[in-house]
């Protein structure tokens, strides 16, 4: 199971990083989402992988799973969900305002305006 979890985190991170480096906003949003999935699974696995164990210490319970990463990952999920919603709205707004969906605001092949303005 360790191999499965580790390689899925690796695969998600790889795809996420690749998408993040694309030039248009849509792949970038997908890349960020994949990256946050990878991070969530990673964080979850940091409490060690155990199956069928209670996450709470009680009398008579000797084997248990670490509850803290589960709480952490819940916070991380909420934040990354909100942030994905924000960036989707932001990219639509940028597309409508600038007229194209490239992250640096100009289509492929045309020189960036940023150089002149800075």
């Amino acid at each position, binding site marked *: 199971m360790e191999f499965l979890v580790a390689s899925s985190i690796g695969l998600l991170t790889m795809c996420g990083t690749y998408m*993040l480096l694309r030039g248009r906003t849509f792949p970038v949003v997908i890349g960020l989402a994949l990256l946050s999935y990878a991070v969530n699974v990673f964080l979850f696995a940091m*409490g060690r992988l155990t199956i069928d164990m209670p996450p709470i210490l009680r009398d008579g319970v000797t084997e248990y799973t670490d509850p803290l*990463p589960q709480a952490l990952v819940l916070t991380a999920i909420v934040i990354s969900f909100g942030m994905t919603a*924000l960036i989707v709205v932001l990219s639509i707004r940028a597309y409508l305002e600038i007229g194209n969906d490239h992250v*640096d605001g100009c289509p492929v092949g045309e020189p960036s305006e940023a150089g002149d303005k800075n």
Partner: protein
Amino acid sequence: MGNWIVVPIVLPAVMAALIVLAVRHDIVLQRIFSITATVALGAVAVALVIFADGNGPEMYALSDWPAPFGIVLVLDRLSAMMVLLTAVLGLGVVLFASSEWDKRGQHFHALFQFQLMGVNGAFLTGDVFNLFVFFEVLLIASYGLMLHGAGAERLKAGMQYVVINLTGSSLFLVGVGMMYAVTGTLNMADLAIQVPLVAEGDAALLRAGALILLLVFCVKAALVPVHFWLPGTYANAPAPVAALFAIMTKVGAYSILRVYSLGFGENAGDMAWLAQPYILPAAIVTLAVGMIGVLAAKRLNSLIAFSVIGSMGTLLISIALFTPESISAGLYYLLHSTFAGAALFLIGDLVASRRGQYGDRLNTAPVFHQSGLMAVLFFIAAIGMAGMPPLSGFIGKLLILDAARESDAAIWIWSVILVTSLMGIVGFGRAGSVLFWKSASAEGVIEVEGAQWPVLPIIAACGMLAALVALTVFAAPITDYMQGTAAQLFDTTDYIRAVLGDIPAAQLGQ
């Protein structure tokens, strides 16, 4: 101080909610609420600094959960000082914005209060994961503020700013996860105890986690090579927001100082001063890059943004030396560079709005309204930022140079700081002479249609300059306070005992 420690977080949070829910249709009431809350925050911060000056670190356990199981806030000299800095800067920014800027979009004051809440929380927290949460709070508010009163250029820069910070947040979680996996704790004081005890086989994992975290803090602090977001963001953000962002880079510097002096300080065994070899070269390059940018800038706002990068380089050079002298010098420079950067952004906006269609481009244009007054303000702020006498930038750089004498890299530090100071003077001198001097000889006068020139923004900008003057005049008591702060940072025993109770000295690794 008991419950007062949590006030700098609760007060802006309540106020922000109140502004959104109760007075969102009335801009005047919003301003009154926002300014009053910021003044009250300043009063609380003064009380906290006075308390921290006379006492050791004090802990506040949220919901009374005992450390290290619950989340704690810790008040010590450093965090009290940073909260006061935030409050003073915030007051200047909210006064500046309250004449006209806050009408260009919605919910400026609510977002502003949430931003203050996030910044104060990041300074006060004693828990690494809670630091992540407050980073998110301040970032979410900053996204809103950055896009305030949008526009194509600002949306483009804002998009890039959001993407890089979301990536940074992901990395933050990876670093935090690795640290937790190895040490089993996220409480900073407990981390200081657990780090030296880590098994040899896990040391590499902990080191990797700590360095990933360092990378995230460096993104916040705009250190080369992860500084690329800053010029575009700051130059395109609304002026009061850019001035407020002067504290955001300092949050990164503060986090580096806190985590790597407490958790990975001199008691950390193999991992003692883990951050030092990475930050110092990067900081020297940052300073050089920033000042080269100042020379090359074609717009006033990007000139100021690059000078902020340069000042972060200077600040992180002194932090990276990790000696009591360099830290106290660096903290003095931190106060100075925050106010100098904020003052420049505010004055830059005053100038750009008066130049009408010419905006903030560094070219010759006819004389504009209040040209003389603006020239004086710009001159004072530029002297501060470039580090020339008599203002506090000079004292700060002098202290840093003095503290760097013993370092192995002293030659590099001295030569880069001195050469870049000259470059800064040339850059600011060129900008000032183009904007004010050469323009004085051009024909005609710029008239901006329908413009009124309220006094409040000028007062706010003057307030930032007055803070620079106060730093200079009261340099002796302030450096005394900084020396106490640096000593407290190096003697981690008090901090750990304040959080975890009276644990035996053997556990402290001494």
